[in-house]
Structure formats: C-alpha cells, structure tokens
C-alpha cells in the first residue's frame, strides 16, 4: 500500500496544566491514504475538531506526531506552516468562509497567489478546479449571488486547488438541506476517488456513510473504527465502483 497522506501517531493534546488540565486527545493514531475519505464521529467534546485542527496545522500536539506527506507538522516554523496550509492542505467549513468581496475564481486562487503564484497562473488553476467540481459558470460571481450548495462547491474547489491532496472538512453539509448536502458530499467523494485524501468530521451517520471508514472518538480516544484501510479497499472493489 502507498504511503499515507496524513499520518497521525499517538497524538495527545492537553489544554491547561495540573488538576485543571483538559485532555482533548489522548493517544490518537490515524492514517488517511490517497483515494480515501475517512469520517470522524463522536459526541460533542470528544475531540473531533481538535483532531482536525491538528491535522491541518492549526493547532500543535502536546505529544505525538502529525505528518503530512512525510513532513512533521510540529517541526515546521510559522512560515513553513503557512505555506503548508496554502499549498498542501485545504479546509472546508460548515459556513463556507468565502471572502464576500472576491469572486468565486478569486476566492479559489487566493491561497495560491498568497503563496507567490502569479495571478494569471492562479486564475487558470482556479478555473480548472471550478470546472471539476461542476461550477465553472460561477467563476465571476460573488458569494452573495450563490446558493449555499454552490458556495460549498466553491469552498471545496478552494480547498483542493493546485496540487493539494489533503482536504479537511468540518461539518461541511451542516448548513445545507439534505439534497444539496448530498451533492456536496458527492463532490468530496469524487475528489477522493481521484486521489485526494479526505478527513470529514460529521455527526450525521448518513453523511459519514460516504466515507470509506468511520473513526469514533469518545473522550479523546478512538473507541472504534468501521474497518482498516485495507478492508475498505476490498469492499470498494467488491461493490464494483
């Protein structure tokens, strides 16, 4: 099997010290391979969002390692971290988080331009990915002139523009009706089928069902998973997809 894009090894995250310390994660290990979508479920306060933040370099582990495509996130300096988030990791949030004063194409190309890519190249990359997620016609539109489902597709395009291969999604369908939400999950699923790695935090079983595996967290510990990556792969082959 190929190397994982996201490799999390025995990670803990503790807020505070001594008696008042809160253990958000207590020894979590998780791999996400190219082509895989992994869902994280668990009750509120179980550590789902902490895990996602660590995976995206938004937060630092108290102990353990987070590796993205072989690079240890904890060892990166501030500039390298910023570059990592612009070049290699994409986030999708519940409330889309598009910049209202920028068009869809500008929103998508922004991280690339911030990282030094020319405007022209950035726009070309943006149009390419907008086409792939099925909203090419929205390239010059502003977010307030788009539906929620369209905004979320643009957000997925932004998360995956360039050669980014890890997408981290936090309740991406939370603000959408069920059919629109399903369309968004389908886009995410398709991107993973095309080789990206996805980590999806959700509390909806119906949405987690789009993933290859589901990881359950409770009180900062993985209590169960619906199978190993190998098994997920066999099932995928078995179902003929």
């Amino acid at each position: 099997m190929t190397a994982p894009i996201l490799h999390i090894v025995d990670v803990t995250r503790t807020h505070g010290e001594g008696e008042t310390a809160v253990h958000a994660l207590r020894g979590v290990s998780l791999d996400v391979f190219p082509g895989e979508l992994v869902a994280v479920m668990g009750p509120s306060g179980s550590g789902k969002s902490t895990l996602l933040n660590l995976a995206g370099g938004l937060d630092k582990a108290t102990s353990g390692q987070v590796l993205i495509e072989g690079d240890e996130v904890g060892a990166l300096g501030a500039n390298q971290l910023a570059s990592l988030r612009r070049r290699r990791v994409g986030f999708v949030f519940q409330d889309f988080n598009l910049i209202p004063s920028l068009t869809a194409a500008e929103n998508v190309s922004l991280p690339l331009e911030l990282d030094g890519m020319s405007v022209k190249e950035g726009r070309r990359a943006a149009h390419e990915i907008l086409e792939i997620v099925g909203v090419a016609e929205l390239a010059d539109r502003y977010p307030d002139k788009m539906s929620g489902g369209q905004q979320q597709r643009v957000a997925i395009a932004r998360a995956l523009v360039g050669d980014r291969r890890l997408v981290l999604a936090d309740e991406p369908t939370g603000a959408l009706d069920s059919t629109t939400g399903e369309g968004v999950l389908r886009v995410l699923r398709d991107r993973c089928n095309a080789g990206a790695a996805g980590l999806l935090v959700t509390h909806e079983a119906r949405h987690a069902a789009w993933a290859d595996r589901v990881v359950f967290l409770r009180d900062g510990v993985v209590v169960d998973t619906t199978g190993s990556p190998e098994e997920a792969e066999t099932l995928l082959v078995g179902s003929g997809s």
Partner: protein
Amino acid sequence: MSVKLGLLALLAEQSMYGAQLRSEFEARTGGTWPLNVGQVYTTLARLERDGMVAQDAQADEEGRILYHLTPLGLEEVTTWWRTPVDRDETPRDELVIKLALAVTTPGVDVPAVVQTQRTATLRHLRDLTRLKVQASDQQASSDGTSNDLAWLLVVENLIFAAESEVRWLDHVEARLATEAARPKRAVASTDAAAAEDAEYRTAAARSANTTTTSQGARK
C-alpha cells in the same frame, strides 16, 4: 408486506405466470425481498381459492399457465392503494429485543453491544450509500424506466432506516450514561416478579389443599 398484495398489484396490469410474477416483483423492488417460486405458487393457489385470481382458459404458447385478476381481486388491490399501511402492529425487531434484554441481564456489557451494532450498521449504511450512487447514476442515464426509480426509492428507504437505527443507538448510549450517573435502586421488576411468583405458589398450594378442581388459579 404480504406477498399476496404484491402479486395482486402485478396482476392488475396483465396476466402473468408464476415465475414471471416472481421476477417482476424482484425487478421492481431491486431484489431486496427475494421470493421463491414455491412461495409464489402457494400464494396463487390461496388467491384462487379465495376467488381473487383465476387461471386463463388457455396456456400461453409455451404451455405456461397464466393467471389474471378477478373483480374481487381488483377490489382488493384498489383498497390497498387507498388505505394506509397498518403501523399499529409492532414488528418484532431483534435488535430492540436484544438491547431490552441486555440492559436487564446482569453481566452484559451493554455499551459494547451498542458500539458493535453501531459499527455494523454504519458499514451497512456505507454499502447502501454506494448502492445508491450506482442506482442514481443508473437512473440518470437510463431511458427513464420506472424500475430504476423504484430501486432507487427502495435503497433510500433502507438508508433512512439504517440512519434511524444509528440515531437510536446514539440515544441509547446517552441514556445509559445518564442512568449510570444516577444512584442505584433495587431492581423493581425482579422483585415484583418474585412476589407474583410467591403469591401464585401460595394460591396453588391453597387450592391443592381444598377440594376445588380449579387448576387455572393463575390469572
């Protein structure tokens, strides 16, 4: 759902022979509830006895016996379409019974039972979701035959059912956590059963001592 009404609904369209009824039924429901031919013929025999279907006067060119609907059968189907499905009768659900017994049986690790089931149901849900993607692609690219739509609707129904099971299991887990935090009392139902049992035995002993012939002292 009774096989009877399914067969009647199919025969309302046209005359069919047994194996044809079976394959039509499966095609339209995506093979989710397989029928065997024996079951089809037993049901047809019963329907014939009740005057709802009759055999065609002539077999088809390959010698197969075709069945058609009688006016009484047609009335039965029409009534079925018009009336809601009866939901008063609680179906016997193994999972519900299992959990009800698990929480009342000492020594059972109930959270583990819940977790194991949820993992299995989520896997099932994932497989159903894949089927659904296939089914909706098929439906989108098809010439619009209604069998594809029927299959898609069946899969979606199974998805809703599986999702509802997961939500219920989440609820059970939360409920167990609340209960675990509560101060313990004696298990009332066991006490009550023991008391009832003692009472019954006393009554039985009493009736055996007297000359009455009543055997059914118990309620």
